[in-house]
């Protein structure tokens, strides 16, 4: 219910500034694209994106510094008070871990060094990138 109201408000504001309306999923995809480019610039070798597992989806898989890195992308739009990192709840954390463990077992890379990073991105209301940050080794079991 509140989501609907939110988009309606957003719609109104966006209509005011004469910009096209974006859905939540499209905004997410935009965030992932920006994050991928940022990782590429930071010398991460990108292997794959949007890997589907029975438990969900892995955003980006890459290699850096001898580690397999699973990257989760979180972003916020237009709200300067909230932190994208706080949007990772316990439940979400468990899902991410399950995804990665499934992938490791499936692809048989148990012998490799593995890490999970988080990219947090903040965008303004006009979809301009304000701040982007990579947290290395964010999760520890």
């Amino acid at each position, binding site marked *: 219910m509140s989501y609907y109201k939110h988009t309606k408000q957003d719609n109104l504001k966006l209509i005011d500034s004469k910009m096209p309306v974006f859905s939540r999923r499209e905004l997410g995809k935009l965030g992932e694209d920006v994050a991928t480019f940022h990782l590429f610039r930071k010398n991460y070798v990108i292997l794959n994106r949007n890997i589907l597992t029975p438990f969900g989806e892995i955003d980006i898989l890459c290699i850096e510094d001898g580690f397999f890195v699973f990257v989760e992308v979180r972003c916020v739009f237009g709200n300067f008070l909230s932190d994208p990192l706080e949007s990772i709840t316990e439940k979400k954390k468990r899902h991410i871990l399950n995804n990665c463990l499934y992938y490791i077992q499936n692809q048989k890379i148990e*012998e490799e060094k593995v890490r999970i990073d988080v990219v947090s991105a903040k965008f303004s209301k006009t979809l301009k990138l304000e701040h982007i940050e990579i947290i290395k080794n964010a999760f*520890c*079991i």
Partner: protein
Amino acid sequence: MIAKINSAGMLGIQAYPITVEVDISSGLPCFSIVGLPDTSIKESKDRIKAAIKNSGYKFPAGKITVNLAPADLKKEGAGLDLPIAVGILCAMGIVEQEKLNNFIFFGELSLNGKVNAIKGALSLALDLKHLNKILILPKASAKESAVVDVHVIGATNLKEIVDYLSCKLEMERIKIDSNQLLQENCEYTIDFVDVKGQQHVKRGLEIAASGAHNVILIGPPGSGKSMLAKRVTTILSSPTLQEALEITKIHSVCGLTNTKKYIIGTRPFRNPHHTISDSALVGGGSSPTPGEITLAHNGVLFLDELPEFKRNVLEVLRQPMEDGQVTIARVANTITFPAKFMLIAAMNPCPCGFLTDSKTECHCSPMQIQRYLSKISGPLLDRIDIHLEVPRLNYEKLNQKRNGETSETIRARVKKAREIQKERYKNDNILFNAHLESKNIEKYCTLNENAQKLLKLAILELGISARAYDKILKVSRTIADLEGKETIEEEHISEAINYRNLDRNIWV
């Protein structure tokens, strides 16, 4: 690569060696500690992570497994932070394994990498001396261990230790002259001369101190029983180095030493409140910690308001008083603590407290007095050799200037008497007259004719029991020693009979 670090753990007051093994392997980052750690060791993961990062090293991303061997003993305390951190750095390759084999590490880490003080440093030095390794301890606790002849190094922070191990930094062994330290630390702040009058009681306490007899002080409130009891430690002989180390070891395990005094050279005085529970008095808990009687080892235990103590608490005292040690058995292990102490008990003669007072009238009925006095069970009274009555001082005595004997003069006499006993009992297992058993009493307590006649008269006329007979002989043996006489004479017997007030039921 597996890193192996030597460390230690505490069981009661004994230290035992622990091996800390650290393995870093590939996989999702994880940090687990196995080997029955307790809650404070489980919490140390965060401390170690922060300490390593803040010391300038990278915390490894990988599966870190820490094993605390032997794996079936419960590990407690926060002293394993330092060895685990050093183990992680070794497994990462920052420190070499060969260099670590000669050291034992023990210490708590703070978040910025500093090493914090720990409890029980002296036990570590005493019990791990046979391993011939160098001890690395926090600087605040290291001086305590250096009193024993062990190579100890005091560290301030983690980076300093790593630099020392990679030979980039020199750290000196701490050297302490134990005998000189003992001399400096045996000052008492109180003195026997503080108590005015009460010559009779002082004489009785002097006898008790010479022969290690247990005492009970009976008197109205405010007559100076607690004050006198506190000062008994000043007339006992100064502890030897061996005794001082035992006292310091027990206090160090309980966290009662301070960093300025590395050794405790004064005899301990413990004064538990009468609401104490039996496991707090004797020692206990699911992982046994020393109780009041162990803290009073080689010192004095003062039980004020003896009838107010719970019945079961007094009952558990009987066995340790006889054996000089207390054994606490739990599901996981059985631990024995030393408990050789001198007992001083104090009580009022009746519920209102003024039965023996000449000025104030007592308002208790004979039934009440009987019930009050019988709260102290027979077996406990059995262990108490000397009964002293402490009267209230009148105005003249209170107003006079302090002119009694100082503790030093009394201590010299006590020391002489103790030396006679030490010489006499050197082939037996006992130390003092109070520990004499029936067969030895016959051997060592020789009475002259008059003394024998007096004793016979006392038994027949005064109704002294067999229990009291042994005690009178022991106390008169001590009185004779104080005068340097070999045979016991009638003055000694009569004075000893005087100290059996409670047996003669003079009030009821």
